[in-house]
């Protein structure tokens, strides 16, 4: 199985180019409707519940869930499916904070903390958490982009990662949240369609009999029935628990997912959007289990080389095989569509990440910390665009330095660990614990970020180099240590300090639970050309 045959490139390239053209069209449409800060970061709060459900699905089904989890299933069987399950279980904690996030927030997670706390330090801390999560997550996605585009076109990993960073930047700078959301909706629909097609084609190989599929997967794995149960990827229980904790608690601390709830008109649409996302993502993961196990049964162990480091290319290789094999028309078309979809997936997710970091930098750090609330809305949006550009550049450089050798799901799990340790405790306690103080929130975020990042750097995957021996920490994912550390720091910091006079839990409580005083949806702004004014 080869993926670099010269005749693939034109077709795959034109599919990807078509997808990029469609998304740029969406961006141009959205750019005319993006004038105020609320347009830029929250799409005017006019996204409907079902639309937002598709967009959340898009954020969930990143390259990690699509390429990475299928790769882990191909290589390690059930443990790969377990990783996908963890990603689904995260919806329950998310469901419990979604409505309160909508009611209390404006553009970022920090807004929720700022309702009840001293805004300047609380926002600075929340921005730190957001930036730390986004840095790791962006790297993961750009590495995936580099790998996929390299396969697709044969151009180098470096160039591919840089080109992806440039495209996502165009979406964000010009189209803001509206473009990002619609790119996400288009991509989610494509991904779901591809999932259905691949699952049907795989099942067709086994006469639509899942028992036969699993049977042959087990035989092809060389591990027999062990392949169908846990234990091949996670050597020790502690590694699995740590990864599970990172995923399950992390999503409710992911800035780009939390921000999604601020794009809908009200709390009802916020919870409704989770209903849609849960239905779609759950269905997709059922299909993905057929695809992942089926890949082993169809491709056999000899494809382990072809699926690349970390198994990231399992789905493209499988698609080519299902379509009729390398060189066949069907194989080429299916490979092109899958690669194009994977590319669209990555573009959409990185755009969401960039917009959430630009919110943290412009809305939290610049407007409310540096300028103490004195910046105009126009200035905030300009700073937001500059921030988006800087973040993209930085992430692209980090990606090129890190190189293509990491499994995407593994890297994403690290981003979840930072989110679960730094952002989730502060957000949850701000919403539920009356005695929580500004000092507690700041120390929680700082300790959460510091613990998780230090443990990641010292872990086997990073120190002293990928997959090498002799690292000081054996945990591959830090969550099992860093999440309790984050909560503990929140708790200790709160006990050792007194709430300031201006701090009011009741205010946040009433607002979060009733929606009283929540940010409202804006009337649609007319396209800019008709109004003839710039940023309002």
């Amino acid at each position: 199985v080869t993926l670099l045959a010269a005749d693939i490139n034109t077709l795959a390239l034109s599919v990807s180019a078509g997808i990029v053209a469609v998304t740029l069209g969406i961006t141009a449409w959205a750019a005319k409707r993006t004038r105020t800060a609320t347009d830029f970061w929250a799409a005017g709060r006019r996204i409907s519940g079902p639309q937002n459900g598709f967009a959340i699905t898009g954020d969930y089904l990143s390259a990690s869930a699509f390429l990475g989890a299928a790769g882990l299933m191909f290589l390690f069987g059930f443990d790969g499916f377990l990783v996908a399950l963890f990603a689904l279980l995260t919806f329950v904690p998310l469901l419990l904070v979604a409505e309160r996030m909508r009611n209390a927030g404006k553009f970022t997670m920090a807004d929720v903390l700022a309702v009840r706390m001293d805004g300047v330090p609380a926002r600075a801390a929340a921005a730190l958490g957001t930036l730390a999560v986004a840095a790791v997550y962006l790297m993961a996605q750009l590495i995936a982009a580099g790998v996929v585009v390299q396969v697709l076109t044969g151009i180098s990993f470096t160039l591919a990662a840089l080109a992806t960073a440039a495209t996502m930047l165009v979406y964000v700078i010009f189209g803001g949240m509206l473009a990002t959301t619609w790119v996400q909706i288009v991509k989610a629909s494509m991904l779901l369609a591809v999932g259905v097609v691949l699952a049907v084609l795989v099942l067709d190989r086994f006469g639509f009999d899942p028992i036969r599929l699993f049977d042959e997967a087990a035989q092809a794995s060389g591990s027999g029935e062990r392949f169908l149960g846990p234990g091949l990827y996670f050597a020790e229980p502690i590694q699995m628990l740590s990864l599970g904790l990172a995923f399950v608690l992390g999503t409710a601390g992911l800035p780009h997912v939390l921000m999604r709830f601020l794009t809908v008109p009200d709390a009802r649409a916020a919870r409704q959007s989770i209903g849609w996302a849960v239905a779609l993502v759950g269905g997709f993961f059922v299909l993905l289990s057929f695809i992942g196990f089926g890949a082993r049964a169809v491709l056999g162990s000899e494809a382990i080389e072809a699926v690349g480091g970390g198994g990231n290319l399992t789905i493209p290789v499988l698609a080519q095989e299902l379509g009729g094999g390398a060189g066949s028309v069907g194989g080429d078309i299916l490979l092109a569509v899958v690669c194009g979809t994977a590319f669209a997936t990555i573009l959409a997710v990185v755009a969401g990440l960039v917009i959430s970091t630009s919110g943290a930098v412009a809305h939290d750090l610049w407007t409310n910390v540096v300028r103490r609330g004195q910046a105009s809305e126009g200035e905030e949006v300009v700073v937001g665009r500059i921030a988006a550009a800087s973040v993209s550049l930085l992430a692209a450089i980090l990606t090129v330095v890190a190189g293509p050798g990491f499994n995407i799901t593994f890297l994403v799990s690290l981003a979840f660990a930072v989110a679960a340790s730094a952002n989730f405790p502060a957000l949850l306690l701000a919403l539920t614990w009356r005695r929580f103080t500004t000092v507690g929130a700041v120390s929680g975020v700082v300790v959460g970020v510091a613990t998780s990042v230090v443990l990641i750097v010292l872990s086997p995957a990073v120190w002293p180099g990928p997959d090498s021996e002799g690292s000081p920490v054996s945990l591959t994912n830090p969550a099992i240590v860093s999440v309790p550390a984050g909560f503990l720091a929140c708790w200790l910091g709160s006990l050792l300090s007194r709430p300031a006079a201006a701090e009011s839990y009741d205010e946040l409580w009433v607002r979060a639970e009733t929606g009283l005083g929540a940010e409202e949806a804006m009337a649609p702004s007319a396209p800019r050309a008709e109004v003839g004014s710039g940023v309002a």
Partner: protein
Amino acid sequence: VKQAAWHLHAARVMLIVEAAARPRRSRGEDLNMTALTTSGQSGPSASRTGARVEDIVALPAFGELVRGRRVLRLTVTAIFVVWAGSFVLVTAFAPEVTRTTLGSISIAYLWGLSQIVLVWALTWFYLRHSDRVLAPLAALVLTEARFQATSRHQG
């Protein structure tokens, strides 16, 4: 004062009747809530009905809403922790139990699929309960808050 109390009662009845009349499709509830918040003058607090936070906290309906939400959240969390937690712990510490296969489909996989069903069911339950019970209650809190603010303004 009597007349005011009657208005409040009427508002409660209206909301309850309304909620009962359209138990499923209640698109407007939360939108109404947002509309309410704009209609008042901004009072001493940030809330835009002109109602004071401490007055709202003291409302019986607010207590009922908060208790209702707490019960719902704790119920969902408890079911989730038990079913997902037992799955994760058994998979981690007793993998041989879940490796048993039934006609080439392992217990681990079936139990895993049941987690997807669990998340579906919990979400469905949460949405239904929120739409039918909690959203009308939240609307009632806002009506009472607005009423309270108006009567306070009138002296």
